[in-house]
């Protein structure tokens, strides 16, 4: 394994070896170059462009947008729409992360272990993740809308319409609930993988020592799951901070723009209002906030994990 072809001394058939090596050099380039070129053109260049465009007034059509310096960033700092959207986004991310992880871990504990019933439950908890967020949103809006299935039933029974999607506070809560409904199956599967790494002997020992189920969970299982919890929290947070498709289909940002998320606002500003420079500034900000939050959570969790082990 350590002796690669390049290191082997080409004593006997030098000319052939040289030709082979040059041929292999060409082959190597052929294997690496296409992926690298595409990656640079379609991913690295755009990231640089996003920074540049955020300093311009690009409208999506003109060939050379005017440079406006930090104007877009100044504007967005006291943009009431962005402030409201940022609040909604943080609320969705925080409450959603809590919901996804509590349900994810809770159900992972309930469906742990190999049995046909557990396999069935895992599939049923997971399946919404297979559907596009757009379809999930349209489906739930048909169920919870003012003339939707649930409200039809409620009014038939003589009740008042429940404003699931027509009242700003209700709509935000509904959106979080649907996000959790559609996503926690993934967390269940991730926590199940983490649970396989919990040493069985430790759990057994604690049981023999007379620990209750809760004590075993609190003092053995949960500390052993530490890294799993960190991964799950960061993943949920990063995913929820860019919530877009579901807003489009469930509430369309309404009522009165009250459930617009930052990602929704970015695309609205960019492609509805043709302010792509301004949208770029917002997306750069969203990227920085997401990276910072992921970093802080990872750091805090690591400190917590170290404290547990001491």
């Amino acid at each position, binding site marked *: 394994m350590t002796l690669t072809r390049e290191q082997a001394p080409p004593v006997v058939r030098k000319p052939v070896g040289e030709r082979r090596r040059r041929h292999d050099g060409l082959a190597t380039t052929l*294997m690496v170059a296409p992926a690298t070129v*595409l990656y640079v053109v379609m*991913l690295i260049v*755009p990231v640089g462009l996003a920074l540049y465009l955020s300093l311009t007034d690009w409208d999506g059509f003109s060939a050379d947008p005017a440079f406006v310096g930090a104007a877009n960033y100044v504007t967005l700092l006291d943009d009431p729409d962005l402030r409201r959207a940022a609040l909604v986004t943080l609320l969705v991310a925080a409450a959603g992360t809590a919901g996804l992880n509590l349900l994810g871990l809770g159900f992972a504990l309930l469906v742990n272990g190999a049995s046909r019933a557990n396999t069935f439950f895992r599939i049923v908890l997971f399946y919404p993740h*297979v559907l596009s967020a*757009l379809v999930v949103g349209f489906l739930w809006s048909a169920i919870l809308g003012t003339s939707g*299935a649930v409200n*039809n039933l409620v009014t038939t029974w003589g009740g008042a319409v429940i404003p699931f999607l027509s009242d700003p506070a209700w709509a935000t809560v509904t959106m979080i609930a649907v996000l959790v409904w559609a996503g926690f199956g993934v967390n269940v599967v991730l926590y199940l993988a983490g649970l396989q790494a919990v040493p069985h002997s430790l759990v057994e020992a604690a049981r023999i020592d007379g620990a209750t189920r809760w004590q075993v969970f609190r003092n053995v299982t949960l500390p052993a799951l530490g890294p799993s919890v960190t991964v799950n929290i960061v993943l949920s947070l990063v995913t929820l901070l860019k919530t877009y498709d579901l807003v489009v289909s469930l509430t369309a940002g309404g009522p009165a723009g009250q459930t617009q998320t930052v990602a929704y606002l970015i695309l609205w500003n960019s492609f509805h209002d043709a302010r792509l420079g301004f949208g770029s500034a917002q997306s750069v900000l969203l990227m920085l906030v997401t990276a910072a939050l992921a970093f802080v959570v990872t750091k805090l969790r690591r400190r917590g994990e170290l404290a547990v082990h001491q």
Partner: protein
Amino acid sequence: MTRKTFLWATAAFMLIPLYVLTVNAFKGQQDILANPFGLSGLSLEPLGRALTNPNFNVFKGYAITLLFVVAVNVLSVGLAAPAAYVIARSPKRRFRVLMLFFLAGTFIPGQVLVIPVVYVLKTLGLMGTIRGFVLFETTLTLPFSIFLYAGYIATVPAVLDQAAAVDGAGRLRTFWQIVFPLMRPAVATMVILNTFSVWNDFVNPQIILGPGSGLYTVTTGVYAAVSQYSTDYTVVFPTLLLAIAPLLIFFVFMQRHIISGLTAGATKG
């Protein structure tokens, strides 16, 4: 409440939306409004009308989406697998740097890319074209594919390569004929992941292909068909059912592989 009862109740709650969707896809507006959970007044007529909806030709949507799924998968595997092979097998410093360079891409959120990619595609004359969309979607799959493939190739013994070289195979042949066939599990994971992300993508096809191009995927087609008529349930339910049916059937048959594939993808950050 016992554990089993609680789990069955949860399962019911998870499946009710699917039940409502399926049942109401076969009912008229009156029956849906009067009795959304019941089974009265079932007919095939709403489904038939959804199939011939002038705003959204479902079969065209399936065909275009399937074309995208196949093109992105073929291109992604064709580009990422050989690159990952070189990176995994070469001890040279520059390929280790290249790995980190690709890895950086897994941390870049798609939201940041949408706007500048419009600029790039316009410059290249690819905006609103199938080629432009497929190239961009393929690019999005590259970082994680290369990461996953390189990790997998590292577990394939290098003696195999050496044996092939001794037998006179060049580098390309060694990879495609000896190593690539052994990568099947990793490739299957990526294909599942890419299939779902391309099929369910909404933002990128909506913006890159645009409403003017006449090209729509299942997802953007559903948006066009449903968002304007969101209270005409005889349009909403059958259209949504047609949009998710292929994926759900695929999921039911391949659930074990799909769950592990999508979960691997969820951890890519």
